């Protein structure tokens, strides 16, 4: 079953057409990767799907509902979580607190409940804390719970961001270059983690530069170049695709 279906997506900045008539679908419980050279419009595409940027035209259907034009928080509330290429954690908050914010869509206490701190609210707060710790444990960083997120090592920050996204128990996860800035060991670790996430029943759409990682874990691959989709296929087929080889390696190798 298709969980995300995008059709005819367009976005331009001034005169630059960053995303041009891009469309593809993502099957449930799969890992799909978006690859392409720098400036191909991958991150822009993510920002359009998650609602961070307004799109010019096109439609995004998530779990049978059109979500284009919605505020990001509404999209997140419908079960679409994301991470960022340049990690965006909440500064001044501990790793645990960051993940607890991730539980936002899974809890309800508002201003009045918060001010009065009713027993129900306390119970909910306790569950948020327990659940968030579980996600930290899942990423094997439970011991870092009380450390300020900003003071963690880069790889650990990435793990916290993962945990925060997972804490929402999303139906689908958008990962923007999850291996950026990581060494080979860490990258392999992230690969295993992404597969684990898929096995939890979460669909994954990722943008990634690291080809070995993409080829390893992806079920399907979309290739973008200059804002256009030029290929969509299984990893093995993409590796053989002449057009893809040309844009990655230059004309003479084609």
């Amino acid at each position, binding site marked *: 079953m298709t969980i995300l279906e995008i059709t005819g997506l367009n976005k331009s900045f001034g005169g630059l057409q960053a995303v041009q008539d891009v469309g593809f679908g993502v099957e449930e419980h799969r890992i799909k990767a978006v690859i392409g050279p720098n400036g191909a419009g991958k991150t822009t595409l993510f920002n359009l799907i998650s609602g*961070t940027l307004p799109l010019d035209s096109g439609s995004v259907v998530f779990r049978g509902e059109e979500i284009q034009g919605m505020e*990001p928080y509404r999209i997140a509330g419908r079960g679409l979580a994301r991470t960022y290429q340049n990690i965006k*954690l909440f500064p001044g908050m501990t790793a645990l*607190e960051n993940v607890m*914010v991730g539980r*936002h869509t899974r809890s309800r206490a508002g201003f009045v409940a918060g001010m009065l701190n009713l027993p129900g609210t306390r119970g909910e707060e306790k569950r948020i804390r327990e659940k968030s710790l579980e996600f930290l444990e899942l990423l094997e960083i439970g011991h870092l719970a009380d450390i300020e997120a900003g003071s963690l090592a880069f790889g650990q920050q990435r793990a916290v961001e993962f945990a925060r996204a997972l804490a929402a128990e999303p139906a689908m996860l958008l990962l923007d270059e999850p291996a950026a800035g990581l060494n080979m060991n860490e990258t392999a670790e992230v690969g295993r983690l992404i597969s684990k996430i898929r096995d939890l029943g979460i669909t994954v759409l990722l943008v990634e530069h690291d080809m070995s990682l993409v080829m390893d874990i992806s079920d399907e691959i979309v290739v973008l170049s200059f804002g256009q989709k030029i290929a969509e296929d299984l990893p093995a087929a993409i590796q053989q695709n002449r057009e893809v080889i040309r844009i990655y390696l230059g004309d003479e190798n084609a």
Partner: protein
Amino acid sequence: MKQFLPLAGLAVLLVCVQLLTQWTGTTYYLTQLTMSAYYSVVIIGLCLLMGYAGQISLGHAGFFAIGGYMSAMLTTRNLITFQDQDWMVLLDKIGFLAARQDLYGEAILSFQPWAAAIIAVGLAGVIAFIIGIPVLKLKGHYLAMATLGFGIIVFRVFLASEIFGEADGISEVPGFTLLPGVTVTGSFGARVSNYYIAWTLVVVAMVMLINLINSRVGRALRAIHGAEEAANATGIDTAGYKLKTFVLSAVMAAVAGVFLTHYNGGIGPSEAGVMKSVRYVALVAVGGMANIWGALSMGVILNFLSLRGFFGSYDDAVFGAILIVIMLFAPEGLLRLNLVAKFKKMFSGGSRK
């Protein structure tokens, strides 16, 4: 519950201060301590908005004044000439009106203080809501100027309106009987009870704000302050949370305005002035922005000194100088020690064991 320990300490301190003034025969200090308490309610509310939600407001004296002026106007305006009209009969039936006599024995029919307070605070909340929707879309300088502009408009309206007493303001505001025997009034005999009324309000406000800061909402606010885009993508309605915080802090300012106006027996346009708004911002800044204990302690100390006339004719200059010095040398606030975060840590550590 460890985050409430300092509040228990505060309660003990308050009683000690009261007893001390009794022994030393200096109960007149209680008057300024009472007034400082009401101003502190504005300041801790603004602290939530500035320090936690990260939104500056240079118009909070406006909300204080809306609360105070509306309440004063409704409880002093003589409506006796309208008493046979349908709407007056209706207001009377739901218990919104109170009849009394003024100093010269003339019959006065005006709003009951409770009713006036509800209307005044409600109005401040509604205005904050309506103003907040467009204003909070702005950032930085634009937000500062827009809230400053709002404050000046409120000031001008009160200053220019005959119904609000123009430059004289409104005086002879009656006491506000909260419960039988508990009346907010400036009369000499009620000095001690009013000291406790004011500080009870502060403590209640502190309890609610501390709860809020340590709740899901407080976490969301800090997330917005730290990384707004990521907070939104995590499912937090950033605009909605900012607006609700703005309204909450405006309502707190209005409540303080209502109480202080009944305590002082009147209100004048200077309460709505830009300098008041700037002063509130200064006190939040001195306390350390995201530190409601800092805001409370600085608010009480500096307002008390100011009300005692300690700064003489340099009152405003002192607050201007404080603003500059704090922002230049200690932008994190005078009390670097972030008590709230510390107690939160103690709390989180304690509950997991």
